[in-house]
């Protein structure tokens, strides 16, 4: 086995060296793959050389992953986690965006609300777990509430900042053409803030995905976080622990890819190109 990993590392290193001779279209694929292979090789060697009985190597992790995929459990836990994240995130966006628009636009509201928002924001959503359980009990309600909290602050603060960044010429253009009230929000404030709002949504979704795992480890009886805890408690199945971590990472990437699709609309592309 040792030689397999060494061969992997040597091969990957050769791949990194050889990539210059590859077609341009392949290069962005090959380099990360090689680096990942080196990482996996080193991981395998480390497990062998330290003689660990508990910590799984790459192969055990793959087997663990296969076991998880075959068991009905994994899908149920994935759905449980995604369910909480989806609802918490949508609630946070539907409160955070309108609130951020108003707080960012209206100086009076800003003065009144900003200190409170800034005061609550640094409290880790994890610290809210006891209160979430107290209010909602063990289950989806507490999870959704915690995700709401995790996503709400990045969204509200990001939207506020986005509105305050609207350029003076655009504000004056709106004023010049007599835009006011809802129309002003619909035609100028909201679209002008949109690129930065999308960025804050992306950040919020990332945070939500981090927090849901922690929340499920502490205060819930389903979901990927709970699966990690359960695998450890039920006979130190660290192969399943690491396999679940891999699943969490992959879903995180997919979520980010999905939300990034928002950046491609014609109405917001101006906010990302040329900076």
């Amino acid at each position: 086995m040792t030689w397999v990993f060494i061969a992997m590392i040597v091969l990957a290193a050769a791949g990194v060296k050889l990539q210059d001779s590859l077609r341009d279209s392949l290069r962005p694929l090959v380099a990360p793959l090689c680096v990942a292979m080196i990482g996996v090789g080193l991981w395998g060697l480390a497990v062998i050389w330290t003689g660990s009985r508990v910590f799984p190597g790459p192969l055990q992790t793959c087997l663990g992953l296969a076991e998880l995929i075959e068991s009905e459990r994994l899908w149920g836990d994935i759905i449980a986690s995604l369910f909480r994240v989806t609802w918490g995130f949508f609630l946070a966006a539907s409160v955070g965006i309108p609130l951020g628009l108003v707080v960012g636009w209206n100086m009076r509201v800003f003065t009144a609300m900003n200190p409170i928002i800034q005061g609550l924001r640094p409290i880790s959503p994890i610290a809210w777990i006891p209160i979430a359980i107290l209010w909602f009990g063990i289950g989806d309600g507490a999870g959704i509430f915690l995700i709401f909290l995790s996503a709400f602050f990045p969204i509200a603060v990001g939207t506020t900042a986005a509105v305050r960044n609207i350029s003076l010429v655009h504000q004056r253009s709106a004023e010049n053409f007599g835009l006011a009230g809802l129309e002003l929000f619909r035609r100028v404030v909201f679209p002008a803030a949109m690129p930065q709002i999308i960025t804050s949504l992306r950040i919020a979704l990332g945070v939500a995905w981090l927090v849901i795992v922690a929340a499920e480890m502490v205060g819930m009886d389903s979901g990927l976080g709970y699966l990690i805890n359960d695998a450890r408690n039920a006979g130190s199945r660290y192969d399943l622990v690491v396999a679940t971590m891999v699943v969490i990472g992959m879903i995180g990437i997919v979520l980010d890819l999905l939300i990034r699709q928002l950046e491609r609309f014609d109405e917001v592309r101006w906010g990302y190109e040329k900076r």
Partner: protein
Amino acid sequence: MTSANQEPAKVVFNGISKSFGRKGESLRVLEDINLEVQDGEFICLLGPSGCGKSTLLNIVAGFEESDAGSVTIDGEIVAGPNPQRVFVFQEYGIFPWASVWDNVALGLRHLSEQERAKIVEATISMVGLSGFEAAYPMELSGGMKQRVEVARALAVSPDVIYMDEPFGALDSLTRLGMRAEIVRIWQQEKKTILFVTHDVDESIQLADRIVVLTERPGRIADIVEVGLEHPRDLGSGEYGAIKNRLYDLLGVAHTI
């Protein structure tokens, strides 16, 4: 400056002064600016950078308040911006999130769909952007963006157009083209135009009268009548004479 014209002036500046407070000190930017602009006149405000041209135009447009003095348009004191008087910004005031069509339609929200479409189409064609209705500003060159902004202003048929170095960010060839274009549109539409520039040639190519401002604090050094027919011959003797006169007023040597 007395005008031979008997009609009451369109835009009147009555003793405008303005200072900005900066770090406890007060920076005097404009001092006692008096001017009468006739209906349909093309006026250039010419002065060195930092002399207060933008501040003056922003006050006239109602975006900023003066410390003393007032502006009247058609006899009414300006209290704020108004869709009848449109500002064309140097740094692209058009909305990057809206298509060319939607940008030009901005000031026509009160009209019926049909009327709006008619005006938008005609205005886009007037500035030579037919075919780009669906494009977003990001996809356009600087000159085209500025055409969109001019179209957005013209679409509402304003009485007065304010332009603050609108072609300042364009390359010199595009700038020349845009000047010709703006003169053509002005002759066609007969709007009153107040045009800020620090470019001596630009002011002579465009204006009926050039209001020369001094270094900060900006005061009116003199008002120069151009009195040349369009299209103007940039090589003519009169052109050169006006240019020399402007350089003298600005206190810049005209030989290098």
